[in-house]
Structures are given as structure tokens and as C-alpha cells.
């Protein structure tokens, strides 16, 4: 074992230690939040330190879980991307959450930050897991760790939303994902992720098709219709949690798992030869368009953003079902660009809710003058998600289109384009109203407090930076995927 291998468990341990620190400092709110932010920075540093070793096949075995099955970490490019997104956005969200919760005077802030850190630990666990069993454990821990966050406010709405959240995520994971994993284990005799696919040559087309569908619906966190219901239900959570769910950890864990399973369990070549992923292309395409239409028709800002997430996640799942190197690279890049875009949008929505007490799109008229930074950031992030230059989303959508073209999937190509047009239609009117419509009533407030605005400006800058840094982000993937 090399010294650098130890970085893998350390990346999981840092957020866990932060949980302990948060609990220990429960009587000192300022120290508690400082600990959270420091933990976040330490984690970001650790994960960035992994970048030079991206191609070196780092491994760390924890222990043998059952005879013949061990819990193990390994570093590979997709996981590195996901880990980086989560690690970099965690401290940003923490600063924001501290500002948000204090502005709202929320109860149970210690519990909030403890479970927040626990969720990040689960995200690291998932990103670095070397086999399906390790990944599944992290996946379920994440579901459980986010539930207290979703139901944080504690009222009847929170209870209802929490019920849907847990019911959908656990039903899919226990009912579909677990059998899929066990089946894979029985077919291949192992649950290890392998380049080229664990199941390559182990099963016929029929079995692979069923198994692929089990995985894609079983990974409820990827929010493919009809298992997307938990995502809008989770909107009852405080906004920083929504940002965490949508951008940092939960849905990203879902699509990351989809990509990982596609590449390292099925193998792109196997999927291309057997066409086992083809039926799911249609499900993803339907989700992409249907969710976009729902988003367009939602007046509630957070609900609109939630359905926008469902639609954007379907881009990534669609990329996986195309089973082409370029498409998967596009999906991976979209995981990153969408994270930065969507977190900015949610941070803006939260800043608007706290400062202006508005939650509906139709109430935002004329707020742009009072909150210029917030709405400018909103505009930047919207354009990135739509996929226009000069913002990060451009490249991910470009690679996705290339992938669809390479797979000769004209329908997928059209769906991708229409989806972007719909995104244009549901996102841009928001800053448009804020900047160009006259206010409904005199605006009695200014910009949101600095702890809220600073993070969202940072992430908006991130959206711009990704346009120029896309090559660097994709560089680790070049080792495993063929890129143009």
C-alpha cells in the first residue's frame, strides 16, 4: 500500500470527524460553523490532492464485510469528478446555510449541520467505492442521513414530504437496486467495478436488458420518471438542503451511480453490442421532456427548479443509455456543470425567499433592481444550464449531442435540443421578470445579506470558469474513455 492510498479513507473520515466536531461544539454556534467550514476546506484540499493520482489506481481495503465480500475504496476518474464537486461545494453551501438558518432563526441547527456533514461523508463513500456493495451501503446511508434534513422544519408538510422522500427512495433501492446488485453478484461472482464492465460476456441480451432497467429505476436518486416524485416532495426542506440535494450530493450520487454502473458494471461495448440500454433511452427522453414541461407550468420557484433538475438529470441518464464514450464524457461533465448551475439557482431562490419573502415566479417582478447580484447570478446559472456560451453547460451539451449523433440516435438528438429550448423557456423568464418588469409593489429591501450573496456569486463564477476549464475537468477521464 502506498502512502497516497490513505487519502481515500481520509476523504471519508474528514466529514465524519466534522460530524463529531459539530456535535461537540453544539453550545457554541460560531465555533460550530467554523468547524464545518474548516472541515469542508480540508476535504476540498484532500480531494484536490487526489487529482495528480487520477490514473494511478489507488485502492484501500477497509475490511471484509461478509465472507467473500469486502468493503473497499478505489479511485477512478468518474468518482474523482463527483467527489470534487461535492467537496468543493460543501464549504460554500455551509457558509450559505449558516447565513440562511440564522436569518430564519431555525431550530435544531446543530442537528442540521451534523446530518449535513454526514451526507457529505456518504457522498465521499459513494464516490470512492470500489464495488457495488460498498456503493450501496453509502447510497442508503445518504438516504437516511438526508431525511432529517428534508423534514427539518417538522410541520405536517415536512412530515408528508419526508414520507414521500423516504418511501420512494427506499422502495426503489430495496425493491429494485438491491436485487439488481445481488443478481449481478450471482452472475459475475463479484461486485467489483471493472474497466470494460463486470458483466461483459456473463449474461445474454434479455437478462442484461432487464438488469439495466432494474438498475436505472432502482437508482431512485437519479429521478427517472416515474420514480422522480421524491424530488419535488423534498422541496419542503430549507433551501440550503435543496441545494445540497440537487447539486452537491443526492441527485449527483444518483446520476454518478448510473454512469458508474453503465461504464464499470455493464461496459459500454457490451451495451452497444447487445442494445440492452436502448429501451431505457426512451424512458430518459420522456422524462427529459415531460419534466421540462412541468417545470414550465410551475409558478412556485422551488418546484420549477426541482422539475428542471429532473429534466437535467435525464440528460445524464440519456447519455448513459447511449453507451458511447463521448456521451458518457458529456454526462460526466454535465454532472459537474449542472451542479454549479443548479446550486447557484437554489442559493438565489433561498436568498430571495429570506430577503424578499417571495416564493412564486409571478411575484418576482421588478426585484432585479433591489437584488442585482442575486439575479445576475441567477441569469448566469440559467444560461449555463441551458447550455449557451460562454458558460460551462455549453460543453457538456455539446458532447451529449456528439454522442447522440455518433450513436445515430436522431430522436435523442432532437430531444436534447428541444429540452434545451424548454429550459430556455422555463428559466430565462425569471431573471427577465425581475429585471424588466415594473415592481408589483414598492420594494422595501435591498440585496440579501453577505453570507447569502457571497456563496452564490462564487458558484456563478464557477459556472463561467467551467467554460474555460472543461478540458482540465475531462482530463482524468481521457484515460478510460475515448474523447474527441
Amino acid at each position, binding site marked *: 500500500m502506498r502512502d497516497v492510498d490513505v487519502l481515500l479513507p481520509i476523504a471519508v473520515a474528514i466529514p465524519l470527524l466534522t460530524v463529531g466536531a459539530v456535535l461537540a461544539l453544539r453550545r457554541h454556534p460560531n465555533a460550530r460553523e467554523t468547524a464545518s467550514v474548516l472541515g469542508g476546506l480540508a476535504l476540498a484540499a484532500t480531494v484536490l490532492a487526489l487529482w495528480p493520482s487520477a490514473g494511478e489506481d489507488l485502492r484501500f481495503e477497509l475490511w471484509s*464485510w*461478509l*465472507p467473500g465480500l469486502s468493503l473497499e475504496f478505489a479511485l477512478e476518474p468518474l468518482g474523482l469528478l463527483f467527489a470534487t464537486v461535492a467537496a468543493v461545494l460543501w464549504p460554500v453551501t455551509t457558509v450559505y446555510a449558516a447565513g440562511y438558518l440564522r436569518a430564519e432563526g431555525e431550530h435544531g441547527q446543530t442537528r442540521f449541520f451534523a446530518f449535513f456533514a454526514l451526507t457529505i461523508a456518504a457522498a465521499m463513500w459513494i464516490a470512492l467505492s470500489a464495488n457495488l456493495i460498498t456503493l450501496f*451501503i453509502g447510497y442508503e446511508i445518504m438516504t437516511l442521513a438526508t431525511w432529517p434534513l428534508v423534514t427539518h422544519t*417538522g410541520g405536517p408538510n415536512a412530515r408528508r414530504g419526508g*414520507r414521500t422522500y*423516504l418511501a420512494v427512495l*427506499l422502495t426503489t433501492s430495496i425493491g429494485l437496486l438491491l*436485487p439488481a446488485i445481488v443478481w449481478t453478484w450471482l452472475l459475475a461472482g463479484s461486485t467489483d467495478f471493472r474497466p470494460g464492465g463486470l458483466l461483459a460476456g456473463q449474461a445474454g441480451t434479455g437478462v442484461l436488458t432487464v438488469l439495466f432497467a432494474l438498475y436505472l429505476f432502482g437508482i431512485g436518486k437519479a429521478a427517472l420518471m416515474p420514480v422522480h416524485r421524491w424530488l419535488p416532495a423534498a422541496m419542503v426542506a430549507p433551501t440550503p438542503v435543496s441545494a445540497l440535494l440537487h447539486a452537491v450530493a443526492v441527485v449527483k450520487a444518483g446520476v454518478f451511480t448510473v454512469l458508474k454502473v453503465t461504464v464499470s458494471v455493464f461496459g459500454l461495448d457490451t451495451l452497444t453490442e447487445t442494445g440492452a440500454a436502448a429501451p431505457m433511452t426512451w424512458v430518459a427522453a420522456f422524462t427529459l421532456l415531460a419534466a421540462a414541461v412541468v417545470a414550465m407550468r410551475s409558478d412556485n420557484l422551488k418546484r420549477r427548479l426541482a422539475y428542471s433538475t429532473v429534466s437535467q438529470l435525464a440528460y445524464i441518464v440519456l447519455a448513459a443509455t447511449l453507451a458511447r464514450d463521448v456521451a458518457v464524457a458529456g454526462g460526466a461533465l454535465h454532472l459537474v456543470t449542472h451542479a454549479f448551475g443548479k446550486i447557484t439557482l437554489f442559493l438565489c431562490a433561498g436568498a430571495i425567499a429570506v430577503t424578499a419573502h417571495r416564493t412564486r415566479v409571478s411575484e418576482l417582478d421588478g426585484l432585479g433592481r433591489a437584488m442585482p447580484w442575486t439575479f445576475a447570478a441567477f441569469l448566469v446559472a440559467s444560461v449555463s444550464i441551458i447550455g449557451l456560451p460562454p458558460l460551462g453547460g455549453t460543453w457538456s451539451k455539446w458532447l451529449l449531442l456528439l454522442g447522440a449523433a455518433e450513436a445515430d440516435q436522431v430522436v435523442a438528438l432532437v430531444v436534447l435540443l428541444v429540452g434545451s429550448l424548454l429550459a430556455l423557456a422555463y428559466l430565462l423568464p425569471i431573471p427577465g421578470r425581475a429585471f424588466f418588469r415594473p415592481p408589483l409593489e414598492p420594494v422595501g429591501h435591498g440585496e440579501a445579506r453577505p453570507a447569502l450573496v457571497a456563496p452564490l456569486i462564487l458558484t456563478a463564477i464557477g459556472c463561467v470558469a467551467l467554460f474555460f476549464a472543461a478540458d482540465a475537468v475531462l482530463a482524468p477521464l481521457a484515460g478510460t474513455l475515448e474523447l474527441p
Partner: protein
Amino acid sequence: MTAHLPALQVLVPLGCAPLCLLLRRFRTVTWLVFLLAALSSLACAVLLATRVDDGPLHYEMGGWPAPYGIEFVVAGFNTPVLLVVSVVAVVAAVYARRSVGDEVDDRRAPLVYTCLCLTLTGLLGLTVTGDVFNAFVFLEISSLSTYALIAMGRRRRALLASFRYLVIGTVGATFVLIGIGFAYAVTGTLNMADLADRLTDLDGNRALYAAVVFVFVGLAVKMAVFPLHAWLPAAYGEAPSAVSTFLAAASTKVAIYVFCRFAFTVFGAGLVFTTMPVGEVGLLLAALAMLVGSAAACFQRDLKYLLAWSSVAQIGYIVAGISLATAAGVSAGYLHVINHAVIKGALFGAAGLLVLRLGSARLDDLAGLGRRMPWTFAAIVVTGLGLVGVPPTAGFASKWALVSALLDAGAWPVLVAVLASSLLALVYVGRIVEAAWFRDPPADLPADQPRAPVSMVAAVWALVLLSVYFGIDASLPGGLADAAAAALLGTGGA
């Protein structure tokens, strides 16, 4: 001394029982005697478990050689059960001091410890014995003392629950005896290994088939296999909390072990699972048990009854694994025997803490208590997740093993029942959580309730932590379960 370990395993608790009765004036001393009995059986079980790697241990009672005298056998297939029973006994003993003191009349408390010693004797004896008639005797020792224990519950309904179990349980025990009688009639021997030898010559003997049916139906009552589970919910629901903690964790598990012992090492898997459709019937009943038990648990208003119905479903998981009669299936069944004992013991213990503090375990009375009793409810949530089977709890390890065994055997309908039952478990565990955290506490809640005693909380949390440990590192119970399956299936009559 160490050569006599198999006998000491049973004799120490047996000797402690009359001691408790003699010392009944000194309540604390009787408790201490039971604690010592439990500790000594744990010590014996651990020592025995370390010795069976080299092969099974045979002990001849009174020096009479095997087919004539009574033989005790300790092998891979019963060490996990010995460990489970004695660990749970120790935890229940620590827990019992305050719990029994609170729930049972002072004059009767020594009787509780006497009966607990006897139950422990019966369960351990049933596990180590290598003689079928001796097994019946121990079965009756454990059953009779259990009836008495249940009757000592704090409500009058406990008497009814006890009487009901007495009737059903006696029918079950009689069936076992009739079955043993038939087997004796056709073979002329009562020693398990000897029976197994002689039965191989008796292909197609009707009396033998009758023996198998009688023994298994009788054991099914003791295992509480659906639809013979009717005694269980009231028995566990009404018994004193310390008693339900011990019984829920240990008693049905031992009956399950005896089922395995008879099926694989006495009658033989060929007769039981190939010639006779015990496997198919078992799978069907197991699937029904999972669905009915979990569904019924969703509608219970009392936490102890809810947990008891959940036990009916969880026993279904174990029976499903064993009914597959494959190495993976039997191993999964054993793994769940271990994990479920730990989980259910902790849950009934936590329910007892609520009874101590609130005087009731009705779900309506739990409203809003999550914040007031964080440790108790955290224990319920963690182990409740174990019932659902989500990682990182012990229940997940069992579920993994069971799902893979079922998939491997192609038992799809049962697999669906397992998954559906897990989701129903989510519903009933969710009801507890919502009652505790999402409902407002009643306005007239007295502010100065008794604090939960440290000994009880510690006992419950010992099991909770064990269940989490078995979830994140299942290699210890998994290894024991694999060894048990190998001993049952591989070597035949040990």
C-alpha cells in the same frame, strides 16, 4: 473440568433455579443468581465455540455410551445458537433488575428469576442435546417456565395470553412427542445420530412420514410459523418487558434450530426436502408469514404488539432461508437468527424502557417523546432500520444473504414477498418515528417522570451497538452461519 463443558452449559442454570427459590427472601440475591447463571452459560458457550473447529464434541451423560445413554453434541450447527441464547440471557439479566422490580410484584420477583433460570436451562438443553426424547424434555422445561413467566405480566390480560399459549404450546409439544414416538417405534432408538443411521434403511415407511409431519408441525407451533403463530403476539405483548426481551430474542430461535437439527441431521435432507415437500410448504408459509406479519404490524396500536407481529414476519425470513435447503439458504437463515435476536432483543428492551417511564407502550402515548427520551428512541430507530434491512444495520447483512440465496435458487415469488415485507417494515417503523417526533406531546405530561435506569439503557444499547457492528462488519456472524450450514449439510449426522 473443560471436558464437562457441554454438561455445565445446562446444569449450572438448572441448579440455579431451585437456588433462586430457596433464597426468595432476598430479592437482589435471586437476581444475582440468575445473572451468574447467564454469565456462566455465556462463558461455557464461548469456550465451546472456540473448541468445535476441530470437529464436533460428544459428551456422554453419566458415562453411558451413546446410543443407550443420553448424549450431548456440540458442533458448528449449535454453537451460534448457544452464543445467541447466552448473550441475550446476560443482557436480559442486566436489564431485568430494574425492569422486573418495576413491573412485577415484589413477592413474585424471585419467581421470575427462578423461571428465567429454568427457561434458560430448557433452551440451552434443547440446543446441546443429541437425544430426541431428551429434546422433548427440555422443550417442556422451557415451555412450562415460559407460560409461568408470561402470566406474570403487569396486566390481567397476561393471564389470558399465558393460557392461550399454554393450550397451543401443549398441543405443539404433544405433536413433537407423538412424532418422536413414531420414530422410536420404527427404529428403536432415541439417539439422533443413531436414528439418522437407521432411518436410511426405512425408505417409504408411512410411520416415518407421520413422524416427520408430527415433529415439524409441533415445532412450527414453537417457532411461531404462520399460521401457527397465534399465541405469539399476545404472549410477547403481555409478558414483563425483561421476559419479552429474552423470549423474543431467544425462544423461537432455538425452536428453529431444533427444526434444522431434525430436518438435516435426523430425518435427513433427502427425506425431508426431496421425498416430502417440506421445503415447498416452508417457502409458502414463510412468504405468507412475511406479508401477514408485516401488514398486521402496521395496524398495531401498542408498540410491544407491533414488535411481536414483526417477529412473525422476521421468522418468515429465517424459515424461507432454511426451506431452500441450500448452503446459502441455511446460512442466511442462521445469519438472521443471530441478527434478529440482537435486533428484537434491543427493540423489546427499548419498549420496556417506555413502559417503565410511561406505564404503557401505546403508540398514542409516545407522541412527541422523541426529544425527551433521545437515547431510547435513537435505539428504536437504529434497530428499527435493522428490521427494514437498510445498511449499515445488521438486518441488511441478513437481507443480502437471503436475497442472494433466494435468487440463486430461483425462488422469485418468495423474493418479492421478502422485498414487500421490508417495505411494510418501513411503514411500521415509520409510524413509531412519526409518533415520537412529529406529533405534539400531550399537554398534561408530568414533568418529573422517573429517569430511565442506566442499567436498562446500557443493556439495550449494548444490543444496539452489536447490531450496528454486525451491519458494518458481518464477517463474525456470517462466518458462524456459514460454519453452521456446512455442519448441517456437509457432514450429515454429526
